[in-house]
């Protein structure tokens, strides 16, 4: 894989903006797009993330080594699958009924959201992370490696090399990581889980992940699988 120098963020909402700020601080070139025209987000980006470049989706993707999807989950199919062809892509999305509407209309109930994102972007490599910590915690908890009480993010995907590369990227963004190599495990950090909205250290995050099946949410997911 190529070294990551250029980070592209699709989505200029709260999460997209915070990730752009962190990436810029970590020394990456950052391009970011919103749902409307470039002009529509220009003032916002210039003010909130000075140094990042507002662009179209096309402009973001073509120049970036790593893409972050930070849009409402219900809109991922608005991005053409082939646009992200051959790219390493972080899925920072979750199903969130308030913005996404009825789950059955957005997702196939038989699999997790990131499995479906991977299936849709079938020529891209999807890794799920940045999805389970609140956006202001992401902003405030980012710390250099080795810092006391540094918080951790869960990173998972089917492609081991890609997951490890993203884990390194997450580290440069200010967080420890707990890593799995199964995209379906993204469910462990989705809304309703013990980890959604929580900010934990690596040891605490590892502990909850290791005992996922024993959590109320884990039991519920297991029952549904058997269901």
């Amino acid at each position, binding site marked *: 894989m190529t070294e990551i120098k250029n980070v592209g963020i699709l989505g*200029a*909402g*709260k999460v997209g*903006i915070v990730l752009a700020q962190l990436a810029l601080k970590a020394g990456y070139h950052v391009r970011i797009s919103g749902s409307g025209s470039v002009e529509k*987000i220009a*003032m*916002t980006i210039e*003010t*909130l993330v000075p140094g990042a470049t507002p662009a179209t989706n096309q402009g973001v993707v073509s120049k970036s080594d790593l893409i972050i999807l930070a849009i409402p989950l*219900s809109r991922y199919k608005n991005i053409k699958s082939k646009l992200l062809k051959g790219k390493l892509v972080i899925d920072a999305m979750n199903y*969130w*009924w*308030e*913005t*996404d*509407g009825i789950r059955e209309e957005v997702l196939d109930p038989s699999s997790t959201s990131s499995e479906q994102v991977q299936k849709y972007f079938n020529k891209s490599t999807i890794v799920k992370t940045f999805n389970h910590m*609140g956006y*202001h*915690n992401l*902003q*405030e908890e980012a710390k250099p490696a080795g810092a006391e009480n540094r918080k951790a993010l869960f990173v998972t995907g089917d492609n081991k090399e890609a997951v490890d590369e993203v884990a390194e990227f997450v580290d440069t963004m200010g967080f420890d990581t707990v890593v799995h190599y199964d995209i379906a495990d993204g469910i462990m950090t*989705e*809304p*309703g*889980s*013990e*980890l*959604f*909205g*929580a*900010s934990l250290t690596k040891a605490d995050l590892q502990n909850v992940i290791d005992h996922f099946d024993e959590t109320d949410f884990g039991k519920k997911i297991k029952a549904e699988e058997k269901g």
Partner: protein
Amino acid sequence: MSMVDVDKLQFGLETFGDIVSAEDGELLTAGQSIRQIVKEGQLADKLGVDVFGVGEHHRPDYSVSSPEIVLGSIASVTEHIKLATAVTVLSSDDPVRVYERFATLEGLSEGRAQVMLGRGSFTESFPLFGYDLTDYDDLFNEKLEMYSQLIKEKPITWHGKFTQSLKDQDVYPKTDYNGIETYIGIGGSPESIIRTAKYGYKVILAIIGGQADRFVPYLNLYKKAAEKYNMPLQPVAVHSHGFIADDEDEAVEVAWKNIKANFDRIGLTRGWAPMSREQFDGETKVGSFYVGNPEHVAQRMARTINLMNLGRFDLVYGAGNQTAAQRERMIELYGTKVIPRVKEILSEEG
């Protein structure tokens, strides 16, 4: 050095109408909780608090779904305090009705009515009034435009998509004063800030988690947008949760128990994890919970006001199920100790 104009600085109290607890821990009824709010509004007025805000919710944890009725009752027993909603969920409301209710409150209170328009942080009102939450942005945009026409208090012609169409229709009652003062409640969406500046409405930032510092760039965005659209730059307000007691430890423990219960109950329906003590302590030390004895709360409020050069600070009280005594004592301490002390700190710095 403080740039804040202390003489013009406003202080508000807001409540979401949480169900009040009796001394023995039993919950009071919604009716009893509503009457308690009226009493508290009266107390806040006597103590010279500038604004009293009441939220709109449609859930069992809160007693108020029709804030203007509660404010109308407070209007009749108060003299100076401004009466605000915190917030009016415009997206699921009818702009004509919103105008009518506030014009009525404006008359009742002799010009003290104030609207805060926004979504609030809840969603129940959408299905309840027959709206689809996924239309949220379009609903708000259209209704804000319609509301902006209505408050001119002249006949309106309007072609609605989500709203009724009107032809040269007038709305009543007319107001006697300077029209209805309007704020837009904003939770951190850059688009909302720009939209508010474009309309020339006042901004109230709901800072309900994390450090106020992260909102400073948003103020620059508001300034730039106001310049771009050639609109006046209005003083910015902030709204955050708090609890004050005479004793620091008592304040922290009461707030921990109640704010946690409140946030966890909401989290349960929205899929986020329960609040940890670490999170809570972070919020009370450097974040957006203003909790402690009067000196501690005053110091933290003064810091935020100074940092953001605010024109107004509203403290949200009563989260969880506090007793009437805890709520009233907090209001007394806010009015008699915290407000004067914040002014004093800011004057010293100036």
